[in-house]
C-alpha cells in the first residue's frame, strides 16, 4: 500500500512545537504575537487536515470497495521485549480523518475567537500554550494506531483540560472544578487502563489494525474465559467503556462536566463540547468491531447508559439558569445520544446505520455545540453575567450573535434542513429497529432538547427587557467570524453524504431519510419550541406556575438530582470515614510508628555509647591493644 500521507506527522507536531515555543518563550513575546503564532500554527493544521480528508476520501483508491486503513507512520517507541512493545504511529481511517476535520475546524475557530475573547487577560500566552497542548494531545489521540498510544494521549487531553479549567487559578471555584474534573476522569481512566490490560492480554496486541480486524485472530481468541456470566472480552470492553464514560461525562461519571464550565468559554467550546468529551464516543467507535463481534453485551451497556444519561441530562437542563450549565447538560445529553447510536448499531452495510449516524451526529454536534458555546461567550462578553435571569431582549444589541444562536438552536432541535435533523434522525431510525424502549426515551429527549434550548434562546434574546448598566454591544469581528463560519457549517454539514464516507466496515452504502420516523421527531421538536415560546417569549408567570405544579420534581432536577450530594456522601461519609480513616490510622501509627520506634531506639542507644568518644587517644589505644591481645590469646589457645 502506498503511503504518501507521511506529512500527516506534521498535524500533531505543529501544535506541539507551538506549545513548546509559547510555553517556554511565551512571556518574552508580546501577548498579541503569541496568540497570533498559536492561531497560525492551528491554521496550518486546519489546511493540512482538510487536505488529508480530501485526499483520503476522494483521491485514494479503495480496496474491495472499502476505505482502507492507512498507517501513515509507525515507530517502536518503548520496547520491553520482542512481543511487548509500544508504538507511536498514525492511523488514517474514515473516523480518524473525520475527527481530524472536526478538531482542526473547531480548534482553529476557537483560536481565532479567543484573540478577541481573551484580549487583555493576564496569562494570554499561557492560554494559547495550553490550547496548543490540547490540540496536540487531541490530534494524537484520534490518530493513534494502538490503544496504548491512545491511552497516553487520553491522559494528556485530561491534563490540558485540567489546566484550562483551572485557567483562572485565583478563583477558588475554578480550582475546585479543575480538581474535580481531573479526579473523576482519572478514576474513570483507571477502568480504561484495566480494560486495556485485559484486552491486550487476551488478544496479544495493542495495535488497532490487528485488534479491529473482524476476520482477524485477535477477536477470535480471548472470547473463551468467563467471569460472573460474562466473557472476559465483555468485561474488558465494559472497563474500556468506563474510561470513555468518564471522559464523555456519561452517568454516573458526569459530575465534572457542569463544573468544568468554570473555565474560559472558548475552552468550554473546544474541550467540553466539541472534541474532548466526544473522545469516549470515538473510543467505542474505534473499537467497534471488537464490541460488536466479541462482546455484544457490552454494547447493550453502552446503549442503556447513553440513553439514561441523555434523558437525565435533558431533564436537568430544563431547570438550570446558568447558560453555560444548560449547554453543558445539553452536551451530556447529546453525547448520550451518540452512545445510543453506537449501542444500537449492527455491523456491515445498512446494519451499521447506528454507527454511521453516531459519527455523523458527532460531527454535526461538534459544529453546532461549539457555535452555541461561542455564542454564549459573546453574550457573556456583552453582559458580564452567566445567568439568564439577568438577560433579556438582547436581540437588538447582538444581531449577529442572535442569528447564529438561533441557527444553532434550530439545529439542535432537529428542524430540517439543519444538519442535526439528518444525524439525529438516523440515530432514531437505528434505535427504532433495534430497541423500542431506547427509541421512546430518545424521542422524549428530542422534545426536551428543543424545549430547553428555546427556553434559553427566548430568555436571552426575548423575554423581559433587562436594564443593563452599560448598553451591551456586539462582539468584535474576530469573534463573530468564527460564529458565522460555524453557523454555515451547522446549516450545511447535514448534506454531507456520511453513509458514503464513514461506515462500520468502510464500504459505503446508500442512506436515505425515513420520513415515517423523521416527521414525528420534527413534530416533537416543534412542540418543544412552541411550549418554550409560550412560556418564555413574553414575561409571564407561566414558568413559575409550572415549576410550582411539579414542585418536587422541579426541585430535584434543579438540584441536579442531588448527584453531587450523593457523591459527597459516598466519598466523605462512607469511603473516607470507614476506609480512608482506618487506613490512615494504620499508616500513621503502625507503619510510621514502627519506623519511628526503630529510629528512637537507635538514637537512645547512640546517646549512651557516645561517651566512648572521649578524645583521649590513649584510651583508644588501650582498647585497641586489649583487643589485639585478646584475639592473640584466642588464636593461640583456641585455634588448635
Amino acid at each position, binding site marked *: 500500500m502506498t503511503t504518501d500521507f507521511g506529512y500527516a506527522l506534521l498535524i500533531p507536531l505543529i501544535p506541539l512545537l507551538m506549545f513548546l515555543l509559547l510555553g517556554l518563550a511565551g512571556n518574552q513575546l508580546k501577548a498579541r504575537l503569541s496568540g497570533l503564532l498559536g492561531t497560525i500554527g492551528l491554521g496550518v493544521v486546519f489546511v493540512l487536515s482538510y487536505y488529508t480528508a480530501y485526499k483520503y476520501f476522494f483521491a485514494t483508491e479503495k480496496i474491495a470497495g472499502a476505505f482502507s486503513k492507512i498507517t501513515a507512520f509507525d515507530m517502536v517507541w518503548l520496547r520491553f521485549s520482542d512481543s511487548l512493545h509500544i508504538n507511536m504511529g498514525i492511523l488514517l481511517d474514515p473516523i480518524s480523518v473525520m475527527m481530524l476535520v472536526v478538531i482542526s475546524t473547531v480548534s482553529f475557530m476557537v483560536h481565532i475567537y479567543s484573540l478577541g475573547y481573551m484580549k487583555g487577560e493576564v496569562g494570554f500566552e499561557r492560554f494559547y500554550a495550553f490550547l496548543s497542548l490540547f490540540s496536540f494531545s487531541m490530534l494524537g489521540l484520534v490518530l493513534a494506531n494502538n490503544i496504548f498510544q491512545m491511552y497516553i494521549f487520553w491522559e494528556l487531553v485530561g491534563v490540558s483540560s485540567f489546566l484550562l479549567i483551572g485557567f483562572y487559578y485565583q478563583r477558588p471555584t475554578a480550582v475546585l472544578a479543575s480538581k474535580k474534573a481531573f479526579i473523576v476522569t482519572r478514576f474513570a481512566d483507571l477502568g480504561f487502563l484495566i480494560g486495556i490490560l485485559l484486552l491486550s492480554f487476551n488478544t496479544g496486541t495493542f495495535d488497532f489494525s490487528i485488534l479491529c480486524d473482524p476476520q482477524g485472530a485477535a477477536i477470535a481468541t480471548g472470547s473463551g474465559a468467563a467471569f460472573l456470566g460474562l466473557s472476559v472480552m465483555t468485561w474488558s470492553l465494559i472497563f474500556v467503556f468506563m474510561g470513555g464514560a468518564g471522559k464523555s461525562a456519561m452517568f454516573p461519571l458526569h459530575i465534572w462536566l457542569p463544573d468544568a464550565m468554570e473555565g474560559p468559554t472558548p475552552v468550554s467550546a473546544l474541550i467540553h463540547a466539541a472534541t474532548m468529551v466526544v473522545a469516549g464516543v470515538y473510543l467505542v467507535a474505534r473499537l467497534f468491531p471488537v464490541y460488536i463481534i466479541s462482546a455484544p453485551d457490552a454494547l447493550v451497556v453502552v446503549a442503556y447508559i447513553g440513553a439514561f444519561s441523555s434523558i437525565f441530562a435533558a431533564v436537568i437542563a430544563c431547570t438550570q439558569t446558568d447558560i453555560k450549565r444548560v449547554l453543558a447538560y445539553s452536551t451530556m445529553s447529546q453525547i448520550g445520544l451518540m452512545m445510543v447510536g453506537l449501542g444500537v448499531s449492527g455491523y456491515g452495510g445498512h446494519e451499521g446505520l447506528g454507527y454511521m449516524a453516531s459519527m455523523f451526529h458527532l460531527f454535526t454536534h461538534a459544529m453546532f455545540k461549539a457555535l452555541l458555546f461561542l455564542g454564549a461567550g459573546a453574550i457573556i462578553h456583552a453582559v458580564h453575567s452567566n445567568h439568564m435571569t439577568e438577560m433579556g431582549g438582547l436581540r437588538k444589541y447582538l444581531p449577529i450573535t442572535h442569528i447564529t444562536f438561533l441557527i444553532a438552536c434550530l439545529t439542535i432541535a432537529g428542524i430540517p434542513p439543519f444538519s442535526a435533523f439528518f444525524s439525529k434522525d438516523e440515530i432514531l431510525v437505528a434505535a427504532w429497529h433495534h430497541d423500542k424502549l431506547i427509541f421512546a426515551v430518545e424521542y422524549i429527549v428530542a422534545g426536551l432538547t428543543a424545549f430547553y434550548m428555546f427556553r434559553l434562546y427566548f430568555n436571552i434574546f426575548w423575554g423581559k427587557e433587562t436594564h443593563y448598566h452599560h448598553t451591551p454591544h456586539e462582539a468584535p469581528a474576530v469573534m463573530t467570524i468564527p460564529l458565522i463560519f460555524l453557523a454555515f457549517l451547522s446549516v450545511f454539514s447535514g448534506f454531507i453524504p456520511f453513509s458514503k464516507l464513514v461506515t462500520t466496515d468502510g464500504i459505503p452504502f446508500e442512506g436515505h431519510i425515513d420520513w415515517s420516523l423523521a416527521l414525528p421527531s420534527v413534530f416533537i421538536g416543534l412542540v418543544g419550541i412552541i411550549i418554550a415560546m409560550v412560556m418564555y417569549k413574553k414575561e409571564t408567570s407561566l414558568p413559575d406556575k409550572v415549576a410550582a405544579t411539579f414542585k418536587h420534581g422541579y426541585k430535584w432536577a434543579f438540584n441536579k438530582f442531588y448527584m453531587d450530594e450523593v457523591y459527597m456522601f459516598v466519598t466523605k461519609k462512607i469511603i473516607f470515614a470507614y476506609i480512608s480513616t482506618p487506613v490512615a490510622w494504620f499508616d500513621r501509627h503502625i507503619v510510621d510508628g514502627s519506623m519511628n520506634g526503630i529510629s528512637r531506639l537507635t538514637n537512645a542507644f547512640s546517646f549512651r555509647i557516645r*561517651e566512648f568518644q*572521649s578524645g*583521649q*587517644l590513649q584510651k583508644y589505644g588501650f582498647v585497641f591493644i586489649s583487643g589485639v591481645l585478646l584475639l592473640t590469646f584466642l588464636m593461640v589457645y583456641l585455634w588448635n
Partner: protein
Amino acid sequence: MNNGIPLQYFLILASIMFFVGIYGFLTRRNLIGILMSVELILNSVNINFLAFNRYLYPDRLEGLFFSLFIIAVAAAEAAVAIAIIINIYRRFSTVNVEHVNEMRF
C-alpha cells in the same frame, strides 16, 4: 652460626622493649614521652627482624632491608610528630594529652 648468644635472648629483649613501649604509650601523659615509646616499639621490631634474619636465613638480606626501611620511616615519623607536637604546644600551651581533647563527641 653460633656466636654465643642464643636467639631467644634477642626475642626476650625485643619483647621487653615492645611492652615497655606499649606501657609508655598508654600511660605517659607527655606527648614527647609517647613519641619516645613509639620509637621503642619500632626498635623492638627492628631487633626482631635482624635477629630472625641473622639466625634463620643468614644468606638473605630482607630482614636487614626491612629494618633500614623502618628506621627511615621512624625518622620521618618523628619529624612529623614533633611538628604536630610543636603546633599543639603553640595552640594549647601544653603537651599534656589529657588537656588536648578537642576531638570528643
